[in-house]
């Protein structure tokens, strides 16, 4: 079994086709007739453009404009007058077309790779792809035509280039395995668009797998099974057909509003951790982002990210999304440590110096983040959410800082949304109990059921001796959730939920009955939750909730809910 990154859901069972990179070696030589060599170069460029345009048109039909535009960009690049001019200049100095092309392309590849800007870095891959394409034409190397692959083919390659992916056809390609790339790489986005299971970043896949060998690609778990036995094949075939049936069913819910059977409309948002995940939120048909965790920006580095770095990340997510984006301010401490902040070791970190508590004491860091969020609010429907609130004072302090930064920005004539909403992530028992007080001063609530359950039940879900207590269906937790929602409704603010419970099929009828208006769930759960919501009428949900609220044990509630879903 080989492990990699699960990049596109589904199970693929098929035979390996290895896409080898051709050796594009040649012996550089001095040309005697530069004019003829220039002509040879121009012919190769023409052929490259013709092939690429054809691929772009095919791709437009199969996956849409965005993918096709990448290839059309290749035509724009190779036709760059500076690039062509320099190449022809070198040819007229006696260099052969191959080495002139390679020299110029390599120059831009290294220049782009060295940029500290993600978008510019991506262009290096484009130039590399163009170099390979034109060199192949100049050297007369035939590229593998993936279009002609037999049915039930699993593609295995070091890296899929956009021009390779253009030939991928859902009818014969049942899986993709590459040695590079992650969830947001070009191959992953394409694989998901084509609904082909993919496992990326599988180390040494090309040398470990052999052509024609049968493999299973599990794009959900991120594993590849080479030469599966009978039992494995059977179990994966079942898994595959169950997956396809469910996918087909859920696809009916794509592009629809989130509505209960009795007609109430809900907002169905996603929880994300990186700006790039906004792409996945859009792909999964999420109607916005209900929780953008900002910790990732602060992780895997040695210093606090600058205001501009944060601004770029928040703006990027807002621009990709074009829908509501709730940004949670830094939730550090507890189990999430950042060595460079020098947080003291605590006896009891979950009860300690974390999230809003840390931010209010480290104002420079907090203000930098708030300023970046406010600046990003000029580019989309951005909202601020404060984590781990336990008192009204904390909310007031947070809001006062937001106002302070607003006036700073006003003075500097920097654009931002004057009416930006500041909400509370209700995840402590204290906040839940004083939800009536908080609701008077917060612009919205979002219930974080993971911590709310842990704090309320005074239990660590990671400790197997006590984890049996950890359930959002505990009568105490349900009472708090109901109270929070009622307080929100009474004060005319919206109440959402961004904890795992929002996607729980047993929980959904209760949330509908209590009056929750926004569900924020993980990206893969969106369509499933939309389906579940559509199955309940408010009246039926009320009946269920009424019964549940009379029950006195989690087990009783669990067993009952199991019978109604």
């Amino acid at each position, binding site marked *: 079994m080989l492990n990699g990154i699960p990049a596109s859901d589904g199970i693929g069972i098929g035979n390996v086709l290895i896409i080898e990179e051709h050796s594009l070696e040649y012996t550089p030589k001095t040309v005697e007739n530069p004019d003829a060599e220039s002509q040879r170069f121009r012919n190769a460029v023409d052929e490259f453009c013709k092939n690429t345009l054809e691929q772009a048109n095919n791709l437009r039909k199969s996956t849409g404009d965005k993918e096709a*535009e990448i290839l059309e*960009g290749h035509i*724009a*690049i190779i036709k*760059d*007058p*500076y*690039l062509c001019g320099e190449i022809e200049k070198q040819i007229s100095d006696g260099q052969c077309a191959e080495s002139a092309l390679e020299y110029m392309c390599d120059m*831009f590849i290294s*220049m*782009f790779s060295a*940029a*500290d*800007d993600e*978008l*510019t870095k991506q*262009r290096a891959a484009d*130039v590399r792809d163009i170099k390979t394409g034109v060199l192949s034409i100049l050297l007369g190397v035939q590229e593998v035509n993936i279009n002609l692959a037999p049915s039930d083919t699993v593609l295995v390659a070091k890296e899929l280039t956009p021009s390779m992916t253009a030939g991928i056809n859902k009818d014969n390609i049942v899986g993709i395995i590459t040695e590079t790339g992650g969830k947001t790489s070009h191959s992953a986005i394409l694989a998901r668009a084509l609904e082909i299971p993919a496992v990326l970043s599988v180390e040494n896949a090309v040398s470990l797998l052999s052509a024609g060998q049968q493999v299973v690609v599990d794009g959900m778990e991120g594993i590849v099974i080479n030469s599966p036995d009978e039992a494995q094949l059977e179990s994966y075939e079942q898994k595959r057909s169950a997956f396809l049936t469910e996918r087909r069913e859920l696809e009916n819910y794509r592009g629809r509003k989130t509505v209960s059977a009795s007609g109430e409309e809900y907002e169905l948002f996603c929880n994300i951790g990186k700006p790039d995940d906004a792409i996945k939120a859009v792909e999964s048909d999420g109607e916005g982002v209900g929780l953008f965790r900002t910790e990732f920006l602060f992780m895997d580095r040695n210093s606090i990210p600058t205001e501009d770095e944060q601004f770029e990340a928040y*703006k990027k997510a807002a*621009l990709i999304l074009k829908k509501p984006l709730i940004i949670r301010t830094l939730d550090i401490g507890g189990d999430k440590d950042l060595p460079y902040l020098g947080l003291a070791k605590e006896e009891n970190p979950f009860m300690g110096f974390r999230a809003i508590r840390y931010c209010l004491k480290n104002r420079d860091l907090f203000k930098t983040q708030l300023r970046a969020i406010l600046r990003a609010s000029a*580019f989309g429907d951005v909202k601020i959410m404060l984590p781990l609130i336990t008192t009204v004072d904390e909310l007031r302090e947070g809001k006062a800082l937001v106002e302070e930064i607003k006036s700073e920005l006003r003075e500097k004539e920097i654009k931002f949304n004057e009416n930006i909403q500041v909400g509370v992530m209700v995840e402590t028992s204290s906040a839940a109990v004083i939800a009536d007080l908080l609701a008077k001063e917060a612009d919205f609530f979002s219930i974080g059921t993971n911590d709310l359950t842990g704090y309320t039940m005074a239990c660590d879900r990671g400790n197997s001796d006590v984890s049996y207590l950890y359930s959002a269906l505990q009568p105490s937790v349900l009472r708090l959730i109901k109270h929070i929602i009622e307080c929100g409704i009474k004060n005319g603010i919206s109440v959402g939920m961004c904890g795992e419970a929002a996607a729980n099929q047993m929980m959904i009828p209760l949330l509908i009955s209590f009056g929750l208006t926004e569900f924020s769930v993980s990206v893969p759960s969106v369509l499933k939750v939309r389906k579940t919501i559509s199955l309940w009428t408010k009246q039926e949900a009320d009946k269920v909730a009424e019964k549940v609220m009379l029950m006195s044990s989690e087990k009783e509630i669990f067993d009952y809910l199991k019978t109604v879903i």
Partner: protein
Amino acid sequence: MVSKQLTLTNAQGFHMRPASVFSTAMGKYSCDVTIKFNGSDYNAKSLLNIIAACIKCGSEIEVVCSGSDENEALAEAIQLIESGLGE
């Protein structure tokens, strides 16, 4: 030679598409067109040169045109940048 200081206002900055729109438009003119940014000169008719400059939204740049049709070229450059480069 004519020139003008401009602020890039399109959200993406000078990336693939905006850079492509701009370089193609400038390619029509016979004069030299240069973007001065961060102390360096970039050939504005070259998509790759513009991308290599990594010019982000909000950056101050100077567009310099020099040659027979410099006035027309500069006028179009200003119009394109001020209108957000087709974004």
